[in-house]
C-alpha cells in the first residue's frame, strides 16, 4: 500500500531517501547479498510493450472524454499520464487538443517564463488560447500560474476525468504487463523470505528484496517492517532488529514497462502465537470479503464496507479506529502504484471490467502488531480475479 509516486519524487526514490534518513541506505549499496538472491535469473523474457496503435487509440478516447467534459485541451508534464499517451518519459510537457496531433514540448526553455510562453503558444496554435484547459493533476502550481499570466482568458480545470477516464480501464496488453510485474514480485519475496535471520535489520531485508528485483531484471523496492512497528501501515523510522516471534511485513512492488505491482505479505519469524494466528486469519477473511464484493456494478465503497464488516464484526473499529482497519481497503493500480479509483467509503463509482485494485484491509493493533495481506485484483465480467495466489495461511506466504 505504499504511496503512489509523483513526478517530482518517485516513491522508490522516496523509500531510499527515507531509509537514508536513519543512516542505513536500503537500496543503494547492498552489502552481503545472499547467494540465493544473486542466483535469481531475469523474468522479463517475452514482455510485450504497449504498441503505437494502442497509444493512438488512447489519445482518441481522451478526445472523446475532453468533449464530454467540455475541455479544449489537456496539459501534462513528464510523468505517468504523459507516458501513457506518448510512451515517453522524457522531460518536457504535452499539449493534447481536440484536433491535431498532440504537441510534445521538449524542455528547450532557458527560464521558467520561456517555458510558460512556449506552452501558451502551443495552446493558442491548437485553438485553445481562450477556452477551458484541463490540467493533469500533478502539474505544478507555478506552471499553471505562469500560463495564466500569458493567457488571461484561460480557465483551468482538473484533467482527471480525461486522464483517469482512460487509465482506469486496463486493456489485455496492460493486464499482461501487470501480471508479469506481480509474478516477479512473488519471486522476489520468496527468495527474500529465505534470507530472514535473527538480528537482521529492516533495511537489510529491504536491500535483499531490491537486489532480488535487480537479479530478476526489473526495478523494484520494498518496505520491510518488524515486530510492533507492523501496526503502522507505512512502518517507522525506528531501528528494528528481527527477533524470534516477530511479525515480518513486506510491501511494495516492481515495474514492468511502467506497470506496477503492489503486494504485501505478513509472516512470523518463528512459531506464531495463537493471537497472531487469529488476527492473521481475520485479515485473510477480510481480504476474501473484498474480493467477493468487487463485482461489476458494485460501488467502490461497498467493497470497502465488505472488508470492514468482517473486522468490525470481530469487535475492532468501528470506522478507522484502531485496533482495526485504519485506512481504505484498496487503491487503483496501473502505471502508478496508487491511482484512481479507490475502494473507500464515499466513492460511489461503479466497478467495471478492466479496473484493477489492491485488496489490503490492514488490521493494526498499536503497541502489539499489524497484519496486512495485499494482492491486486482485476475485474472481469464474472467478478474479481487476483493476479497472485493469496497467502493460504500464516506459515505459508505463497499459495
Amino acid at each position, binding site marked *: 500500500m505504499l504511496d503512489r509516486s509523483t513526478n517530482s519524487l518517485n*516513491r522508490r526514490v522516496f523509500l531510499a531517501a527515507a531509509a537514508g534518513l536513519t543512516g542505513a541506505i536500503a537500496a543503494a549499496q547492498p552489502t552481503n547479498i545472499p547467494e540465493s538472491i544473486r542466483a535469481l535469473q531475469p523474468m522479463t523474457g517475452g514482455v510485450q510493450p504497449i504498441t503505437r496503435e494502442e497509444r493512438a487509440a488512447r489519445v482518441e478516447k481522451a478526445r472523446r472524454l475532453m468533449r464530454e467534459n467540455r475541455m479544449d485541451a489537456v496539459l501534462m508534464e513528464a510523468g505517468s499520464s504523459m507516458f501513457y499517451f506518448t510512451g515517453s518519459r522524457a522531460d518536457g510537457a504535452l499539449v493534447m487538443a481536440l484536433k491535431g496531433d498532440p504537441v510534445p514540448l521538449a524542455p528547450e526553455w532557458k527560464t521558467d517564463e520561456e517555458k510558460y510562453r512556449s506552452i501558451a503558444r502551443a495552446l493558442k496554435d491548437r485553438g485553445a488560447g481562450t477556452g477551458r484547459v484541463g490540467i493533469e493533476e500533478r502539474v505544478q*502550481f507555478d506552471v*499553471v500560474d505562469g500560463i495564466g499570466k500569458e493567457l488571461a482568458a484561460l480557465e*483551468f480545470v482538473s484533467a482527471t476525468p480525461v486522464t483517469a477516464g482512460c487509465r482506469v480501464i486496463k486493456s489485455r496488453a496492460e493486464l499482461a504487463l501487470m501480471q508479469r510485474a506481480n509474478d516477479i514480485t512473488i519471486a522476489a519475496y520468496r527468495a527474500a523470505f529465505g534470507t530472514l535471520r535473527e538480528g537482521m535489520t529492516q533495511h537489510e531485508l529491504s536491500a535483499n528484496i531490491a537486489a532480488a528485483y535487480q537479479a530478476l531484471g526489473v526495478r523494484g523496492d520494498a518496505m520491510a517492517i518488524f515486530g510492533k512497528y507492523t501496526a503502522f501501515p507505512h512502518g517507522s*523510522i525506528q531501528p528494528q532488529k528481527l527477533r524470534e516471534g516477530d511479525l515480518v511485513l513486506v510491501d511494495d512492488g516492481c515495474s514492468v514497462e511502467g506497470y506496477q505491482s503492489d503486494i504485501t505479505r505478513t509472516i512470523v519469524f518463528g512459531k506464531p502465537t495463537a493471537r497472531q494466528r487469529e488476527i492473521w486469519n481475520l485479515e485473510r477473511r477480510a481480504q476474501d470479503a473484498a474480493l467477493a464484493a468487487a463485482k461489476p456494478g458494485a460501488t467502490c465503497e461497498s467493497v470497502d464496507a465488505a472488508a470492514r464488516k468482517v473486522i468490525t464484526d470481530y469487535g475492532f473499529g468501528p470506522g478507522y479506529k484502531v485496533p482495526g482497519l485504519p485506512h481504505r481497503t484498496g487503491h487503483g493500480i496501473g502505471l502508478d502504484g496508487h491511482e484512481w479509483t479507490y475502494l*473507500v467509503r464515499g466513492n460511489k463509482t461503479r466497478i467495471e471490467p478492466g479496473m484493477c485494485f489492491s485488496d489490503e484491509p490492514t488490521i493494526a493493533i498499536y503497541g502489539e502488531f499489524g497484519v496486512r495481506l495485499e494482492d491486486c485484483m482485476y475485474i472481469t465480467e464474472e467478478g474479481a480475479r487476483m493476479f497472485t495466489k493469496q497467502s493460504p495461511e500464516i506459515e505459508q506466504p505463497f499459495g
Partner: protein
Amino acid sequence: MPQASENSGALYDARLAKLREAMKEFGIRAIVLEPGPAMVYLTGVRWGRSERTFAVVIPEKGNLAFVLPGFEEMRARELIRDAAEVRIWQEDESPFQQITDVLKERGISAGRVAIDPSARFFVFDGIKKLAPKLDYVSAQPVLKSADVK
C-alpha cells in the same frame, strides 16, 4: 538533516521568523506547502508526496498546522515539533476542508495566500474550490526573499 529536537527548535524558529518578516513585506497572509525542500528547511519534516495530501499551513500569526492522513498520525508525530498543530483527515474526508478550516480559524478569509510553487494542481484546485475568494499567488518570491532553500 536536523531532527526535530530541542536543539534544532531555535533554528526553525529563526527561519520561520525570517519568513514571516518577508510575508509581511509581500502582503501574504498564509503559505501552504506540500512536502519538499521548503518544508524540510522550515519545519524539519521530510515526507513523501502521494495522492494523500500532506501539507503545512504557515499563517501570518499563530501555530503552524500540519494537515495529514489520519492513519499516518503516529508516524508523522515522530517528525513534527510539539509546537505545531496536527490536523488529520480520514480516508473519506477532504484534506482541503482541513486546510481551508485552518485559514478560516486564523482569521484569513480574504487576502493573499501563497501556494508552494511546486504544489501539484489537485492540491491547489482542491483548496481553491473551497475558498474561491482568496487571492492565490506563487510562494516562490516570498520563499526566495526569506532565503528558503
